[in-house]
């Protein structure tokens, strides 16, 4: 028990105010007061007369009828009856009113009905109007409260169930409230998200000031403010969000808070980028196809023109009897025909690959043999162009599991390309080296025109050539590298890559897994 709890002397009872006669009379029921008033006015004279008559006639035996006494006594009683009647008449409605008001307070009645038109009736009617108005106001208030409650519930539901980020801040960017989706998106509890320090780690540092400016009520930027920024989730994902910040104003129009409604547009933006990329690729492909058609028309027409022209000369012996010249024309016709065949073969090859009609038969292959073979195949071409061709056979067993025909075509195409785009006097090197313990690589290096970064990205696109003019000069379909890439993809473990520097040269590399043990006894894998 504390000192305060110790029982002290009892506090003196407040003195009840003594009720005076005046108070008593004032608190006497109206009924009695009215009755007294009537009694004083109506009964008192009769009482006086009665006493006077009693004194006058009393004291001796009455002998005959006494009319005054009879009348006075009758008058006395009648005055009592009249007083009672009038009192009842006046106070009856008051009692009725009192009962109805009591019933009203207990909810048993809804209206006050006093069937009189005097002051009491008017009072009751006024009360009734007052009560009706109050009842209507209460009803309106109740309706408003219900509506408000519904709106509140609805807002809370929307706030919590919507798949949009809703953040309410004060005018200084301090988070006051945020919805459940914010927590779902970031993986942090809502309690942590309202913490300012945590908020700083949620937004990337380079974007923090931008976000704060958008949430600053004093900033001159008009509302609604649109902003895109990132949030870093608990898992470390960067999500791109788009917010529209609206202002909350008080009655005087001052901004007292900001509501920010945001959407996660990461996937949407990614899809947009993919679409743009796809569109760009489609445009490139379209351009390449147009280029191809232009090239083809030239490439196919050129040998055909040569064939037709030379064959016409030979057939009609337009140069007279000059057999050596006609033999030369026949040779030219042969070269043009072969070139035409080469072009047609390329088109057919890539078409077959695209249709899945190329059969890949993998087996144990000696890469050194293939390198040597390809070197021999392109040597005349290099010699004709006066390009030095250095072929280096590996001094280690460069065995791999591949389709020898496809691998040979890959190397042949790479070599042909290298010679084609290397000027006279340049060098093309072909060789095999180890890229690791289990990986070997065949390289084709040239000192040709080289390729830019952008060109390297598109180099494996069909019908694409680095330099249209040069390509036209050199001939070709632009399908060689596309065929290389597709054939490499069809084989197990074969990878082709190209690196280049404009004006310096290009290196094409074919990586292959070195086969050390005896291969599996499978004869072929088909695609």
């Amino acid at each position, binding site marked *: 028990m504390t000192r305060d709890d110790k029982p002290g002397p009892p506090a003196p009872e407040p003195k009840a105010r003594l009720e005076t006669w005046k108070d008593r009379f004032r608190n006497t029921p109206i*009924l*009695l007061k009215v009755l007294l008033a009537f009694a004083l006015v109506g009964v008192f004279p009769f009482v006086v007369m009665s006493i006077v008559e*009693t004194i006058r006639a*009393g004291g001796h035996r*009455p*002998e005959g009828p006494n009319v005054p006494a009879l009348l006075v*006594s009758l008058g006395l*009683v009648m005055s009592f009856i009249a007083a009672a009647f009038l009192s009842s008449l006046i106070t009856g409605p008051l009692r009725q009113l009192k009962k109805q008001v009591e019933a009203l307070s207990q909810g048993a009645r809804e209206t006050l009905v006093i069937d009189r038109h005097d002051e009491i009736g008017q009072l009751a009617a006024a009360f009734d109007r007052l009560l009706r108005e109050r009842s209507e106001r209460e009803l309106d208030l109740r309706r408003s409260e219900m509506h408000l409650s519904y709106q509140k519930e609805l807002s809370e539901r929307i706030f919590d169930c919507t798949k949009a980020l809703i953040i309410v801040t004060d005018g200084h960017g301090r988070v006051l409230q945020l919805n459940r989706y914010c927590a779902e998106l970031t993986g942090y509890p809502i309690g942590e998200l309202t913490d300012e320090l945590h908020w700083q780690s949620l937004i990337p540092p380079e974007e923090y000031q931008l976000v704060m400016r958008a949430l600053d009520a004093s900033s001159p930027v008009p509302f609604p403010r649109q902003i895109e920024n990132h949030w870093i989730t608990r898992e470390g994902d960067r999500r791109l969000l788009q917010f529209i910040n609206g202002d909350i104003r008080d009655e005087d129009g001052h901004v007292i808070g900001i509501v920010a409604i945001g959407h996660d547009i990461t996937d949407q933006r990614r899809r947009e980028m993919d679409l743009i990329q796809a569109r760009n690729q489609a445009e490139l492909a379209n351009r390449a196809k147009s280029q191809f058609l232009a090239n083809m028309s030239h490439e196919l027409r050129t040998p055909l023109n040569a064939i037709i022209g030379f064959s016409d000369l030979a057939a009609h012996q337009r140069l007279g009897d000059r057999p050596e010249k006609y033999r030369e024309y026949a040779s030219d016709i042969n070269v043009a025909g072969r070139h035409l065949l080469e072009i047609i073969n390329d088109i057919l090859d890539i078409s077959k690959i695209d249709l899945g009609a190329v059969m890949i038969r993998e087996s144990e292959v000696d890469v050194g043999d293939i390198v040597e073979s390809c070197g021999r195949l392109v040597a005349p071409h290099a010699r004709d162009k006066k390009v030095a061709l250095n072929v280096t056979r590996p001094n280690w067993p460069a065995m791999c599991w591949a389709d020898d025909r496809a691998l040979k075509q890959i190397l042949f195409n790479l070599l042909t390309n290298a010679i084609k785009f290397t000027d006279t006097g340049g060098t093309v090197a072909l060789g095999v080296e180890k890229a690791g313990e289990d990986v070997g690589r065949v390289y084709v290096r040239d000192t040709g025109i080289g390729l830019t970064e952008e060109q390297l990205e598109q180099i494996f696109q069909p019908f694409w050539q680095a330099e249209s003019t040069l390509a036209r000069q050199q001939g070709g379909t632009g399908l060689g590298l596309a065929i290389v890439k597709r054939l490499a993809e069809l084989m197990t473990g074969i990878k082709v890559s190209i690196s280049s520097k404009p004006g310096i040269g290009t290196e094409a590399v074919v990586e292959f897994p070195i086969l050390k043990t005896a291969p599996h006894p499978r004869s072929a894998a088909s695609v």
Partner: protein
Amino acid sequence: MAKNIWITAVLIALGLVLGTLGAISVPVGMGVTNFWPGMLVQSLGGIWFGLWGGLIAAAGFPALSNLMIGGSLIQVIGFIPANAVQGLIPCWAFRHFGMSSSIPGWRGIGFFGLWGCLLPNLVGGILGPVVLALTGEIAWDAYPTMMWSWMFGNAVPAFLLGVPLLRFGSRILEEAGLLIKGYWR
């Protein structure tokens, strides 16, 4: 208690006035009259105020009234039983049968007519003149006249004036908290 004494005193005073006036207005003789509104005080006093009105006031004021009109000791003392009975019967009947003092409906008026007017005054009319005859104040030949005068002289004004007073007055007294619903409280 003080309230009850006050009520009794007022009743005695009122009864004294009404009884005296009634006794001198249409006298038959020997304190008996053909119109005695004092019966109102006896009947209604018993109904409203229990034995305070139905016994003390009912028996008390007639004695004073008889003194006022110069009645003999026989009249003053001898009429006390008859007057007491006239107050007691209505007091008992209304409480015993549970009749409201507002005498609602014709049943209430009939009940008051029988138990508040007719029967008490029949008994009072029998008892009062008997005392006079026994003491030789009147001859036995005059007894019936005296008895009927007593009875109707009391019952008629009690009924005529009592019905409206009970109808209007009961509610007022009840509202004012002055009714004594038991015999003494």
